[in-house]
Structure formats: C-alpha cells, structure tokens
C-alpha cells in the first residue's frame, strides 16, 4: 500500500506533537481543550476548528469531542457538536469519532457518531446527529441531512446524500493501512 506516496511535510514548529503522537497544528482553533480527547497518532491540521466549548449545559465534566487513533482532521474542517432542544432546553451532544477516520479539508461535521474506518471527502457537510457506522465512505462534496444513518460498508454521495455504492470486503485493511501510512508520511520538513 502506498509504496509511491510522497511525504507530506509541514514546517517544523507549526505542529505540536503530544506524548501519544498526536500532531496538532498551532494554527488550528481548538476551544475548550479540556473537553476534547484525542486517542493518539491523530493529526489536526492547520485552520481546522474543534469546538470543545459547546458542552452540555449541566454542571460537571463532559467530554465533547472524543477521537480515536490515526484520525485526520483536514485543513479548514470544522468539528462542532450537534445540539437540539430537548425538553424545552437547548443542549449540545457529544461527538464520538472512532479510530481510522479521515476527514478531508473543508468539511463541516456535526455528526453524533463516526465509526471506525470512515473517510469523509472534501467539502462535505455532515448534518446534526448523523450516525456513520464503521467502514463507510462519504464522497467529496456530499451533504448529509440531519439525522441520516450511514450503514457499514456503504458509499454515500450527492446533495442530499444517498447510498450510491457498497465497499469491497477488504476495505477495513485498506483504510487502516491508508491511515497509518498517512500518519507515517506526515512529518516535519
């Protein structure tokens, strides 16, 4: 896999590397960092926005954004927890992102759950409370309306997004290898 993929370099010092191997751009807007959990070896690229401050209004500690390992938040993508009126009060709900999730540049993500091995193409808009099960592909420029459910092994595209294809059985390996390779190739110049 990816024997000829080029290195993806960034200027040294523009990314902070954490103990668990996360690479977070200094130019990413991260609010409410205490409410965000990164699993390790994840990359948060320049210009992305993570809204950890949009937390549940009740007191106490709440995890707003949790992210697994080998994830990628592309440049200019926004992760925003979904919110709705519940029993008369407006509340935000957490975003759960599993392992091996690639979110390409310029996406707006308000999903409730993104399963492992999901790739979201460029310029996608993922509506509130969208549930993406494990192993799915959202093609670039897709708009998923609020509450859409994306089942496993499916490909979605269009505006509004529709199920357009299914994935081959090998997709899990393909995606994991791709995510690992991307992380390995993403290094300081």
């Amino acid at each position, binding site marked *: 896999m990816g024997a000829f993929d080029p290195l993806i370099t960034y200027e040294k010092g523009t990314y902070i590397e954490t103990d668990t191997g996360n690479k977070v751009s200094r130019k990413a807007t991260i609010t409410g960092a205490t409410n965000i959990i990164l699993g390790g070896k994840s990359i948060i690229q320049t210009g992305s926005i993570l809204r950890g401050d949009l937390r549940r209004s009740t007191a106490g500690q709440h995890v707003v954004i949790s992210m697994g390992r080998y994830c990628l938040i592309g440049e200019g993508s926004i992760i925003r927890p979904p919110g709705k009126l519940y029993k008369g009060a407006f509340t935000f709900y957490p975003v759960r992102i599993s392992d091996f999730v690639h979110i390409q540049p310029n996406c707006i993500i308000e999903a409730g759950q993104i399963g492992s091995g999901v790739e979201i193409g460029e310029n996608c808009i993922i509506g509130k409370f969208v549930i993406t*099960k494990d192993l799915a592909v959202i093609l670039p420029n897709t708009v998923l*309306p609020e509450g859409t459910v994306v*089942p496993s092994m499916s490909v979605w595209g269009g505006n509004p997004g529709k199920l357009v294809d299914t994935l081959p059985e090998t997709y899990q390996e393909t995606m994991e290898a791709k995510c690992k390779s991307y992380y390995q190739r993403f290094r300081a110049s």
Partner: protein
Amino acid sequence: MSITYSCSHLDTPHAPLPPSYPSSSSSYHSLDKLYFCEECDSVRCDLCVATEIASYFCPNCLFDVPSANVRADRNRCARSCFSCPICETGLSITASDTSQKGTGSTSAQAGPPYTLVCSGCKWSSKEVGWQFEKPTGIALQLQKMNTQADLVQSEFDALKDHLDSYISLSTPTTSAPSSTRSTRNPSRHISHITHMAQKALHREVGGMVAYSVRNKRSATKDGQDVKVGWDELGEYEPKESWRKAGLERGSQEVDALREINASGSEGLARLEKRWAKSYDGSKMTRDSLPQRIPLQTKLTKRCPHPNCRHLLIQPDTKTVRMKIKMVAANYLPLVEIGRRRRRLPNSEIIESPDQMSSEDIERRRRERRRTRGGIPVREEDEPLNAPLKAGEVYSYQIALTNPLYDPIQIRLTQPHQTHKAPSPKFHLVIPTPHFTINALKDAWAYDEEDEEDDLVGVGSEAGFSEEGTAITSTTGTGTETATGSGQGTLSRKSRLSILSSGKNDRRAKDREGGVEKRGNVSKVNLELEILPEAKGQVEFDLEIRYTYRAEDLGTPTEKEGKTSSSEAKTKEEYKNFTFWVRVKVGHIS
C-alpha cells in the same frame, strides 16, 4: 494510471487477451475486489462468484429483517423508515404541536399527531395528509389507513377474496398424487408449476392441479360430461365500474393534462420518482408519496466452481467483521506503479522523432542498453498523470508488496500472446525480471525499521544486482548495514531460508536495473519507449509469477506459513502461482 488484476473466471488460468481487445477488460479488476479460492488455487472476481443473501437489513434503522418477513414486506422496511418523495432522504418523525403555546417547558411537550418531515428539503407529510397517532410503527399505521381509504386497494382486496373462495373450494380434498395425473390433462403445464410450488412450500397448494384432477375424476365417476373446466371461475362483480370513473371519456387524462398545464413542467414528477411507485401512476409531483426504504443485504460469496463451492466470504450479521474472508489481497502481491521519469535527450543523439525509422529505434535501444550499465542517464521526474509524449523514453518504478509471511520470488515478464495483436505503440523493457520480496512481518517490526530509518536517514547502500539470477542469495552474507541499533538482528538472521536469507535488512537502493527493497516491498524499474506517431491509451499486461514456500506436502495449497515453522525443519516445498496485471499508464498527447 491504474493497475488491475486478471480473473480468468472459471477457465484454467491463462494469459488474457491483450489490451487492444476491448473484451478483455471484463476480466480485470482491482486487487481489493478480488477473492481467492484456496481449494481451486485461483482468483475469483465479483462477476464469477456465486452469491447468496446472508441477511437483510434496513439501511435507515439498521434493523436486521428476518428473511421470512422480507417477501411479505416487499423488500422494504416495515417499521417507520420512509424516504422523502422529493429528495429520497430518510424522513424523521416529528411531533407536530411542539411550540404551539408559549415557550414554557410544559407546553413544548411533544404530542400527537406526528408527521414525517424530511430534514433535507423540509417536506412534510402534512402535504399529502399523512398524520399519525403514534410515533412508532408508521408503516403499519399507514397500511391501516390505506386499506380503508384506497379505492384501488379495496377493489384488489375484493378480487383477492373472490379468488380465495375459489381456492378454498378446491383445497379440502387431499392432494392428488401426481402419478395418477393423466397425460392428457389439459392443465399439465400448469399443474407442473403448482407441483413445484407445492414442493417448495412443503405444503399443498390449493388450486389448479387438485381441482382439475378431482374434477375430472368425479366427472368420469358420475358419467357426466365435463362441464366445469379446470380454469372455470365464478364471475367477479367489480365494486366500481370504470364507466362510472369516467375513463370512457378519458376525463382523467384531460384532468391530468389540465393539471400539467396549470403547474408547468415542475409539477410533473421525474421519471426516477415514478419508477419506484406501484401501478397506480399519477404523473404529478404532488401525488408522489413517501416510499418505505428498500432493504439492503449482506452477501455470502462462494467459489463458482461446480466441484468446489467453498465459501469465500461469509459476513457476520452483527458486526462488520467477516467470519470467512478469502480475498486475493492476502495471497497476491500488490502491484503499484510510480516514480515516472522521462529520459532527457542526449546531446549526441539527434532528436528527430518525425523521421525515426526502425533502424533508429533499434539504435536507440542499443544506446539505452549501453548507457544503462555505466554512464548515468539524465532523467527528469515527471508527474504521474501528465500526458505522455510520443517518441520519448520513460522509466517507471513498479513496486510489489508481499502479503505472505514468507519471502517470495518474483518473475516479471510480458505475457506471451497467442492471439494476433496490432503492433504495439511502445516497447517495454523489464531490466530486472527476477527478484525477491521479503516476508511480511508484524507491525512492530516495521515500526522498528522506521525508527531505524529516522536515525540513519535514507539508508542508501551500494546495491547488489540481482539481475537475471534465479535464487541469488547465499546464506549468511547479510551484514547489518544499518549503522543504528542492531536490535532484532539475531532473530532476523536466525530465520534463514533459501529464498532470502540475511538480506532482510538490506535496503538496497540500486537505481539502475536493481531492486529497491524496504520491508516487504521491492521496487524494480520498467522502461517504456513510446514509439513516434503513437496515439491513444498506453496500457500493457504483465505476467507475474511468484514462487512461495508451501508449508508441507500435506497441505499443498496452504500459503500463509508461519515463520516459526521454518525453524522447525518442516519439509519445504516450493510452488508457483502466476497472475496477470494490466497497467494503464496514460494517454499519449
């Protein structure tokens, strides 16, 4: 730029037709979509595998529908999943009177009636007058509503009742044994079908056969003339006459045309909207109703060979994991192509592609062969997707990744074509037809290697040439060349096998004609000389044969041997497997 693998379907593996035959494209697929049958020792593709439906599920509520219910539910979700008639998004159930009075928390309590609302285009089922008392089991509620209201439905039900009475009339008798059936029975072909249906259902199907046979017998017994035919039915009185509905005068059509006139072209439902609908077809957009969401399936795939039928894919109904997964990616080396370089014109050679004769080409090829050995040829990197130019020489690197836990040996050739093919647009030279690929190792071993890499930088040792040698390595020559940590050296050295002993850690980077190795990936060069005046797509086939170690004689097709057993001195046997890939390089501009 793509690489696809050939599947010879049920034939014995053979070199497929050359790329100039468009029909050959059907046997090429990307590696991740191919399967591998160990029993037949051959590649299988989606076109040839036998599929069975393992389970049905609704893509919206993810409910696993028991296969017994699927037919009755007409392959659609029978719970509350509907798709929007406008944009086909799943509809969500919304309580209607949420914000009727004030903003107090008590008044915001959601209550009936419930409507279906599309979150994509804000279409609401109020538009078609659908409102529900409960937020669950919408399909069932709708069915009740519809059966009461719909005229067509009631007519259908009446007709069904009518036919049911006819069927039940004939059922009480025990099923007539088929042997007594006379061959002159006029309903023979029908009774045949009924008989099969009976078998399939494991119970008696009332109707034609029983009725006719019984009838015939009783008729002969009584000595009467056969009055009641096998297909005789009582007359059905329709509830409503079509005359009453005004069909006679075509008033419906006139109305429809009037509506279209009034609404303009937008009022007309698009064809794809009307396809999914039942027989009652109104052409207007406003008449299109939400449809229950069609079910999706998980498939079990089997080897298509009639003597094999082994399972290749067996999905787990609960998770995304597969119980059985025999995919070609675990057996065949992955082939990738990259690092395209264009040879810069040498100042000595007069570049005149217009007047290039075959002699010139020959001369140039000799030239190229000569230069490859000693003097470095000036080359320039090019983007992989840029159009090719006629008359230029390109070199590519082709990378093969070993999926097996044993080293394999590769033979890379161009397939011998028995069929007549038009003269190619290019010459392909494979400088290194024989080379080996190291074994796949555990992930941590690679991590280690990467760390070493970071320390050493690019370990560019003077490479060794493996050109033209079948089994090159002699055991024990592998010296740890990496200057960094020598961790894991012992374990690696101890794994001596004939194919690739000791060289495991050599990252030989011999650019010209050699093999570039790293982990379980080997890269070799390909040279492609585009002939002048060539046009169109450049694609070629490669025949790749790999030799792997079969574990022992007992299981000759077992390929994924464990590395530990090589130390256990099992009887080693080597096997070959040949496959074909098609490389699409690009267009000649």
